[in-house]
């Protein structure tokens, strides 16, 4: 039971992270100001944060 709930949670978290990442990068590409380096830095930080959290979640899921 715990495995099933955790698996659904994992899918929700990964799905949400992928969707938000796509939507946020889409808006940054579309509406950033020409020559804005900060926008790239923010996206880099956000992507890596997302990736690390997903990997950590996967590790914990495999330990269940």
């Amino acid at each position, binding site marked *: 039971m715990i495995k099933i709930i955790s698996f659904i949670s994992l899918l929700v978290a990964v799905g*949400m*992270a992928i969707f938000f990442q796509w939507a*946020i990068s889409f808006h940054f*590409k579309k*509406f950033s100001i*020409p020559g804005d380096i900060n926008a790239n830095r923010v996206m880099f930080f956000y992507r890596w944060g997302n990736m690390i*959290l997903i990997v950590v979640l996967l590790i914990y*899921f495999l330990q*269940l």
Partner: protein
Amino acid sequence: MIKVDGDENILLIKRRHFFVLWKKVAPLIALGTFGLAILIASPWIDYPKILTDQAIFPFAVTFILIILWNIGFHSYTNYYLDSWIITNRRTIHTELKSLFSREQSSVKHNRVQDVTVTVVGIIPTMLGYGDLTIQTAGSFRNFVFAEIPEPYKTKEYLNKLIRESRKNKQDV
């Protein structure tokens, strides 16, 4: 990417005051920090056995952190991309109302009739942020720079550009 004409220069970019973002993000940071703190403190606290037997507890905390991280960045995107760009010819405003709901408008300096600053409340007065409203000629609605820092300085700068723009029009 926002496009400007070839002979157009970006002079000033205004966003909402940082405090406006902080108000939205602070509860998320507090919640995330609290989650991490109870995770780090878990060896010293007697949690129910079901949580400590397996990796359920860290899994749940990481799950919540992913949600908070994404909501936080959504708020940051809203803050960062809601901008007012003042060029030598016009003011461009992009507003991200939510993901997939956005509005972009611009007004030329020579169409501006009046510029008004409104600062309401103790915190905006102390931190120095407020609304700057541009009234334009014709049926175009008001153009509001919402909760921007240094609204009075921006007003002066905008007035200077408007005067220059009118002068250039008269010269032509």
